[in-house]
Structure formats: structure tokens, C-alpha cells
């Protein structure tokens, strides 16, 4: 079962990730359609969370991308970020 619901506040992204032997999924880089590839430098937090802004829910990765902090959501099987 998947929930693909588009809205202007939600950007679905393509993600490259590591699937670790202990069952975790760690995103390494992401790319929005036609956007640049963003390499994730560090993941500072992982938790279940709702995104009221983008409209969705899933595992939320707080990622450092360069100087910026980005919230990346995994609402299985989709990945999305919140639009600015």
C-alpha cells in the first residue's frame, strides 16, 4: 500500500541509500526532478514524524547537506522533502 499524494508543498525525490545489515535504511544522496544531486553529509536524527507542511508521515531523517539542514521523509515506498 502506498500513498502518493502531490501538493505544492511536497517534493518527491529520488534517493540513493545504504541498506545496512541490521535492517536500517540510511540515505546517502537525493535529487529532486531536474534538480542538482545533494550529497548527505550527516544524519543527525531519525524518528517517526508527521510533516504538517508537506502533508505526509513517515520516517524522518534530519540531514546535514553542506551548511543546510534538510528534513527527508520516507513514507514507504516514497521519499519526499518539504518545499520552501
Amino acid at each position: 500500500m502506498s500513498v502518493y499524494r502531490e501538493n505544492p508543498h511536497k517534493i518527491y525525490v529520488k534517493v540513493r541509500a545504504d541498506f545496512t545489515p541490521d535492517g536500517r535504511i540510511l540515505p546517502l544522496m537525493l535529487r529532486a526532478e531536474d534538480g542538482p544531486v545533494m550529497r548527505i553529509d550527516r544524519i543527525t536524527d531519525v524518528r517517526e514524524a508527521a510533516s504538517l507542511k508537506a502533508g505526509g508521515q513517515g520516517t524522518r531523517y534530519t540531514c546535514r547537506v553542506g551548511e543546510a539542514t534538510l528534513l527527508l521523509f520516507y513514507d514507504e515506498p516514497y521519499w519526499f522533502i518539504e518545499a520552501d
Partner: protein
Amino acid sequence: MGRVILHCDANSYYASVECLYRPEIRDLPVAVAGSVEERHGIILTRNPLARKYGVKTGEAIWQAKQKCPQLVCVPPDYPLYVRFSAKMRAIYEQYSPRVESFGLDEAWIDLSAPGMTLERGARVADEIRLRIRSELGITVSVGVADNKIFAKLGSDLKKPDAVTLLRPQDYAARVFPLPVGALLYVGPSTQRRLAQIGVTTIGALAQCDPALLRLRFGKNGLTLSAFARGEDRSPVMPVDHRAAIKSVGNSTTPPHDLTCMDDARCILFLLAESVAARLREGGLRARCISISARSTELVTCSRQITLPRATCLAGEIGRTALELFDGRFASAFPLRSVGLNCSMLTPDDAPVQLDFTGDEEKRMQREQLERSIDDLRRRYGHQIVRRGVVLLDQGYSAINPVEDHTIHPVPFYAG
């Protein structure tokens, strides 16, 4: 050791999940409603904004729009609601293995443990409430009490996103003045009958002589009396919303009203096929067949019969349903919807009494045939084999009740 039981109730569940996924409608009056085209156009649930306009669950969309013209109606997405329900349950199970789902949006959690008190239970309830809000983006109301009935009552007292603690010393001030209808399983009919003996509040029910209640309501009277006094001892059963199957049923609101016996025959056999297939799929047979019909004024009536032998045959179920229908509803046309339900279930590997007439052997052959049809339908789709009777009406024959599942709360006395 006193019990500590939480009842968590997701507020305006379907509408809350829809509003989470559709930020653009979050601040508008929203209702989740069935399809008007398929005549399922009733309000399934609505958000608090829509409630303020007087929009009620169960009313037709056109009635709701008269009260609130700007009402946004969205179609239901059951798989999404099932998924969110599982996520809520996963959170509950981090606090206790004893979690009993009551439909998709409600659950009891038994926190009882040495050292656990109602006050501490209320703090856990608050933690659960906050977690569901931040992790799932929806809200729950939680009732905390030493029994399931008052825990449920508590979750209804303060909404949304709240915790209500009901300790025995709170009953007199907070529970007893409430109308008796606030109690689980006191529906409009019981409420009316209680009013006839002057019982209109939970307090009055609690004080009423149990012997009198037994006289008027049978053993249910004693249960109601215990409920009202907060003496419900029923355990929290560790079951999810797909709890042990007690019955298998299907109902449908066809594209046009049923106006004659031919219509009824067509629909009842469609439903019988669906129910029989699901019985076989679940490895079950049923002895009790019941049908219900809803008039165009939305008045529902039902009838049931117990068969001498358990069955999972569409033909037997359909014919029995038709006989029941003929005896009770034939003069009640037009009808808006019809339902068929099979209960008193037994496993299909239970011993069967054979007979000398060979009837039972024929039934076994018939079952083989129906299982072969199940197989064909699984491989090539439901419409690949159809009964002649369902082809009488093209509008009806397009209905596929097998895929038209309804999710009902499990009965309180499950187990």
C-alpha cells in the same frame, strides 16, 4: 492490584488522516464521503470544522451541503486508514502487549502492573497522546479508568487531543450525571426502554435494583447494571481489528433501488456468492444466515434463520436468504440496500454427519464445484463465471461485492 486501562480514540479519524495528507484543505470543513454516483453518498466522518456547521456522520452529502455549502468531500482511502491504524497500534504496543483494537480508530490498552496507578496511567496516556500527534500527525482522546467501559466513556468526555482520568472517587461527580446513552452498548432502543422505568442517567442505572433490570432486560440487565457502577471486569483481549472472525457478511447499495423479487434474487445471489467464497477462503462454514434490508427512508430491518447443517455453499446460502427475504421484505419494496451475513461459524474440517440418502455426498460435490469456480475467479477475475440470475439486470451484474469490503468494529464480547 487495581487495573489501569486506557481507551484511545482517534479524533475524526478518516478526516484527520485526509487532512494530514492534503494540507490545502486542512483549514476547511472536510468530510470523507462515499461516491454519489454509486449511491454511497453519505458522510462517513467529518472534521471538527464541518461538525460546527452541523454536518453529521451518516447523512447524505446533499443534506450536509445544505448546512455547509463550502464542505469539501473527499473519497475514503481505506488502505491508508488501515496503515495508520497499524502505526497507532505499534505505538500502543510499546507500552503493553495487551492491546485490543475496536475498529480501526479505537483501542484499549491494559497497563496494569505492580506499582502502576491510575495517576501514572494518565501520565502514560499523555505521553501516548503527544507521540501520536508528533509521529503520526493526528490526534487521539484518551480515557483512563480501572475498567474498559469507563475508559471508553472517558475518551468521549474531552475531545480532541486530551486525556481524561476517571478514578472511582470521580464517578459521582463526572460519570453518574451523564445520560445513560453515553454508556457503551446503551443504544437508542435500550435508552428508550430504560426511560420507561425512569432511568435516564448512568447514576440512576447504577442505583437501579439489579433484580428489576434482570426482569426487564434479562441477563443483559445485570451486565448494564455492572457497567454503570464501573464494575466491568472484561479483560483487554490482545487482538487487532481483524480479530477472530465471528461472522462473514456483505452488504451493498446497488446503483438503483430494488423494486421486485427479481431484483432481490439477483442481489441476494451476488451477496451469497461473495460471502460463500469468503467462508471457503477462511476455511469456515456457517449455520446462521441473516439478511437485512434498508428502505428508501433509511429504516433497517433484519431477519435470521439457523440451518440444521453448516454450509459454505453459495446456492444454499442464496436460497435460504431468498426464503427469508420473501417471508418478510417482499411487501416492503422499494429497498435501498440489502445485506447478507453468516454467523455461528465452524471450521470446515469439523466432522460432518453423513447420511443414507446421499444428500451430504452431493453437497460435498457441490462444494468441490464452487471451489473450482473460486479458482477460476482467482486466475481470471470475478466476472469470468457468473450465475444466470445475476445477468437479469445489467446494472447489478457489474457489482463485485467480493472486493467491496467493509471494516466493522469487533464485538465487545470478542474472545
